[in-house]
C-alpha cells in the first residue's frame, strides 16, 4: 500500500506556532553552537591544549 501524496494538516508545520517559529530555530542554532564548542574542546584534548 502506498502512502497518499496529498498534503495533510497533520504532516505540515502549523502556521503561527510559537514552538516551530521561535523555539525550534533558536534550539537548532544553540545546539549547533554547543556542538562546535564541544568539538573545539575535543580538538583541544587531541592537540594537548586541554590536560587530561
Amino acid at each position, binding site marked *: 500500500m502506498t*502512502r*497518499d*501524496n*496529498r*498534503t*495533510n494538516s*497533520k*504532516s*505540515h*508545520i*502549523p502556521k503561527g506556532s510559537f514552538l*516551530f517559529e521561535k523555539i*525550534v*530555530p533558536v*534550539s*537548532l542554532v544553540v*545546539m*549547533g553552537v*554547543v*556542538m562546535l564548542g*564541544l*568539538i573545539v*574542546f*575535543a*580538538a583541544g*584534548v*587531541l592537540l594537548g591544549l*586541554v*590536560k*587530561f
Partner: protein
Amino acid sequence: MSVNHILPFLSTAIMLVFTVSVLQRFFVRRQPHFLFWGIGLAMFGAGSFAEAYLALAWNKWVFFVWYLFGAALNAAWLGHGTLYLLVRKKWVHAVTVVLVLGSLFAGYLMLQTMPKLDEAVFTTDRIISEQYGTKALEAGEPVPAGAQTITTTYRGEEVTAVRGILPLGAPVRLTTPFFNIYGLLTLVGGAIYSAYLFWRKRVMPNRVIGNVLIAAGALLIGFASTLTRLGYGEYLYLGELFSAILMFAGFRFAARPQPDEVMQPAPAAAD
C-alpha cells in the same frame, strides 16, 4: 547507596528497550542505518551497565567494556548510522571500513593497557567516571580533596599525578576524541541538519521535534562527558539518563506514523 549508584541501572533499562526497538526495525527493513544505531545503542547500554556494576564492585573486564564501549566508541557508531541515512554514497562504505578498523585498533590499545591498570586505586565510594583517569598536576596545582597522588616519569619528566585506574598517557585515551568528534559531527550535526530540512520545508513536524530531541540528547551526553574531563564526573550519570530518555523519545517521535503523510524524500535521523 547514592542516587549515582542507581542512575546507570535506569539508563541501562532504557537503552535495552531502545536497542531492541531499533534492531527490530533493522531485521524488518534491512537498512544499514538501523544496524549502526542498534550497535551504537548496545554499546551505550553496555557502558551504562558497566557503570552500574562498577558502582558495586571491581572487575577489570567490566572496566574494559565501560571505557571502550561507553566512553570511546558508542557515539561514533551511532553517528555513523545517521551518516548512512543522510548520505547514500559509496564513500560511506569506506568510512565504515575506517570506523571498524579504528574501533578494532582502540580495542587493541585497550587490551594493551589492561595489565597496567592501577586496580588498587578503585573504590566503590566514588563513581567510576571520577577515578578512571590519571591526571598530571601542574606545578603549584593543588591536589583535589581525597585524591591519592603518585610521582612518576612521564615523557622524560618526573611529574606528580592524581592516581587513576588508567595509566598516565595511556594511548587508548588519545583515540577517544577522534571517535567523539566524529560522533558529535554525524549524530548531532545530522539530527540538526535533518530537523532543519523538515522545518524549512514546513513538513513532518514530528520529525522536526524528534530530531531536535535526538540532537539534544546526544549533546547532553557530550556535555556531561566534557564536564567529566574537567573533573566534574558526578554529573555524567544524570546526563546519561536524560540523554537516553531524550534520544529514545526523539526516536519514537520521529518514527511515529502520521495519517496521510506527505511523501518525503528528504533524510531524517529516524524513520
